[in-house]
Structure formats: structure tokens, C-alpha cells
């Protein structure tokens, strides 16, 4: 399946990009994060992140579908 990933904040710095297209067999965000973390060394354990799929907050074991936009969200610090 093909996924579109967006990176923000420290994950963007570590990945060295703000977006990437990824080809993966990951069934859920947990498996997908393990893959990209292994490749980029993102530096944050998944317990410290939230995940969004197609612009909405999602659970780590949500089933992914081809074409999904997946975003791993570092702890927020707006305001």
C-alpha cells in the first residue's frame, strides 16, 4: 500500500523532510511508525506521540488503507 506521511516539529528535523510517500505493508500506524522510526531515527517513543489518519485523530491499531495520509504528532506546544 502507498501512504502519505507528514512530519512536524522535531520529527520533521529528524526525518529531514516535511512529507514523504511510503510504500509499506504496515497494517496499522504502530507498524508503520516502527518502520519509519527505524529508517529515520525519529527519537520519540510512540507512547509520547499521537497519530492522525486522513486529518483525524486515530488509534495506533486502526486499520490502514491504500492512499491514507498518516501523521505522527509530537507533544503539542501551541499557545
Amino acid at each position, binding site marked *: 500500500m502507498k501512504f502519505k506521511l*507528514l512530519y*512536524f*516539529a*522535531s520529527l*520533521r*528535523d529528524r526525518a529531514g523532510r516535511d512529507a514523504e510517500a511510503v510504500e509499506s505493508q504496515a497494517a496499522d500506524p504502530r507498524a508503520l511508525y516502527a518502520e519509519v522510526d527505524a529508517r529515520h531515527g525519529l*527519537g*520519540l517513543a510512540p507512547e509520547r506521540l499521537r497519530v*492522525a489518519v486522513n*486529518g*483525524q*485523530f486515530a488509534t495506533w491499531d486502526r486499520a490502514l488503507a491504500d492512499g491514507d495520509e498518516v*501523521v505522527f*504528532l*509530537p*507533544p*503539542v*506546544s*501551541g*499557545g
Partner: protein
Amino acid sequence: MSGAFDLSDAPLDLAALAGALDSASAGACVTFEGRVRNHNEGKPVVRLAYQAYAALARAEGERIVAEAHERYAIEHAACVHRVGTLAIGDVAVWVGASAAHRDAAFAACRYVIDEIKRRVPIWKNEFYADGESGWLHPDGTPVDDGAAR
């Protein structure tokens, strides 16, 4: 509720924002401005930059303002958050709430800023006088500082 929450890459027009809270039946109007401070955790700050996951930030921001309407007897509430590079003293986030009575206006304004800081996908990168920079946690401590606080 359109425009109840927005992101802006330009300086905020505070008078225009406050004007949107006006109502002949609203006796109380409370506003909060979050400004860029010249220090954080004892380090001098020279400027900062905000990144946002815009689509989700807008949706979550609108949800928070809608929650404020459900929880408190307010007439209007709104919030705008800056993105991009800001200088010391710039307004980074503005919240306003109007109501017939001040209890509701204070409570709603406080609710919105607290939830914005807790839930909306916006990240602050501080640039320090020593040339360093760092992404921040919600509590103002650095993300990359491994020690628990």
C-alpha cells in the same frame, strides 16, 4: 460558528477580533492574549516559530470552541493562533468570549486556551540568544531533554 477558530500567518488585528464578540445582550467580554516572552526556563529567547498541522488544527480548534458553547452560557467565542516566525511581544494566540455574565465569559476563555494548548497540533520552536533552538513540550520544557521532570 464559521471562523470560530483560525490560523494566521500575519499579525493579528486585535480590534477586529474583539469586535466580533460584540452583542447588545453580552454584559461581559473576556479576552486572553498569549505573547512571545523574552525568556523561558531561564533562557533568553530572541524569536520563535510555530508549525501547525493545519487541517487537523482547524478542526480541533473549532471543536474546542463548540465545546465552550456547550459548557458555558456564552454568546460568542473565538480563537486565532499564529503560525510562522514571531518576534518578542508578538501575539501568538488570542481567545475571546462574551456572555451575559462574567462567570461564563471568564470560564469559557480559560477553557479554550487550556484546551488549545493541550490538544491542537501546533508546535513552538524557540530560538535562544546563544544560537541554539529547540522544540518545546506543552509545559515549556524541551522535547529533547530526556530527563523526566
